[in-house]
């Protein structure tokens, strides 16, 4: 089905993303809502974690990230990973935001509190896992987050973070052991 070598190495998620972005580039801009639905929660979790702040800030940054992605969509190379591209946008945005705050305390943010909109049982489970995640190294947390929250395969995580697959596997194993 796929003709190019790039497509052959793409994951199913990447192929779906590429199809959607193609539609957006073809003028069916409403298709962008699909990627928003797909990556919106992951992006908001990302900002909520990175910026260690209130939920409104995470929401604002999420909207801004998608706005940037939408406005820059022409620079996205079809066939590459949208997830990686979009996460880079999120990363730059988080850095910009951190710089704008100029708060040294951001270096070691306190464990974020479970969101109030979460049903209690889920919130408690989430709180437990969040606490455990803060015992991991930053890289291990990134690996974990990409694997679970961004729904990536081990190979995708390695590609996004520029790490060897073996390193990602080790980090993932460490993270899971912490949570067992």
């Amino acid at each position, binding site marked *: 089905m796929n003709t190019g070598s790039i497509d052959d190495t793409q994951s199913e998620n990447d192929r779906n993303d590429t199809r959607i972005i193609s539609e957006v580039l073809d003028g069916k801009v409403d298709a962008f809502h699909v990627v928003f639905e797909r990556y*919106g929660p992951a992006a908001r979790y990302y900002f909520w974690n990175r910026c260690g702040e209130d939920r409104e800030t995470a929401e604002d940054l999420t909207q801004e990230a998608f706005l940037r992605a939408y406005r820059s969509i*022409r*620079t996205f190379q079809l066939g590459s990973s949208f997830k990686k591209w979009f996460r880079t946008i999120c990363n730059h945005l988080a850095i910009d935001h951190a710089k704008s705050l100029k708060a040294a305390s951001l270096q070691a943010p306190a464990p974020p509190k479970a969101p109030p909109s979460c049903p209690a049982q889920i919130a408690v489970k*989430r709180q437990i896992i969040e606490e455990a995640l803060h015992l991991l190294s930053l890289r291990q947390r990134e690996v974990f987050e990409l694997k679970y929250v961004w729904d990536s395969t081990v190979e995708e995580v390695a590609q996004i973070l520029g790490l060897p697959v073996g390193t990602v596997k080790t980090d993932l194993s460490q993270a*899971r052991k912490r949570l067992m």
Partner: protein
Amino acid sequence: MNRTSCSQTSRMMERLLESDDPRKLTQADRDHIETCVDCRTAAARVAATEAGLGEFVEGIRLAESPGRFKLPTDSPVAMPEVSAIPAFLLVGAFALVLILTVLPFLRPARTETGVTPISTPAQSGSGDVRIALGTIMRADGWVVPPGSPITSSSELFRCYGNARLQFSNGTSISLQGAKFQAFPGGLVLKQGQIEVAVPKKGLVFSVTTPVIVLGIRGTHFIVRVAESGETAVSVSEGEISVTTVRNEEYPLRAGNSATVSAQGAWVFGPIGAGFPSTFTPEIGSQNPEVRSPTSAPSSISVTGIGSRSETLLDE
């Protein structure tokens, strides 16, 4: 036979914990845990952890769903490629263009001199982008005089010498030997040099070149695009955000310059000596029927912003 201590447990655990889905056991694992309590317990523990993480992710999806995303109206995807437009829209668009644009211009084109005295601009556009100064020519050779709106965002224009565009949002762009498309929310620069002044912060404006997209945050900067697509950016005031074709985004602040190669490689620092600093617009090479009331010369050297001469390299 149940065993209390199995040499395979730790290896299996390690393998499962490193895998994409620790709940997926191989046939050999399944066969083994039938008889090994240790391994069965370990596999169950891993599976339970994974199930808990699944709930964790579901919780995040539930709690972190952002509010509705509003698509901006001035998006860079507002210019769909012709091939992507359904046939009936193409027919409609063609009819509209024929009625509003082509027919009025055909009449003066048939004058004895062959000169195209376009005194009235095309009426189809919003008029959000106007030529404030200089000579700008459409790709088909028609000259659009100063004061005229550039009405079709998907149309390629060229300027000869210096020209200036005025956008309704207050942004002004000085052009030198530029090939470009203009639309209310920004400009696509194919080649040449532009100097952009965005009047205030928060204003939405973008400049796209073959290798980058510039997000503008109320500022003043220069962009040069060479034949290859290689792009140089120099910011004199404010801050811009540069996203390359490699999907990398860089901020560029006042006093900073950078060059992005045709392959998208980012080089921060002064624009190199190797970057073309002279732009000479070719006239007639691609448009043999160029007709201009201003009699544009066949080759023009123009003084650049600052004091340099710029040459537009032909495509």
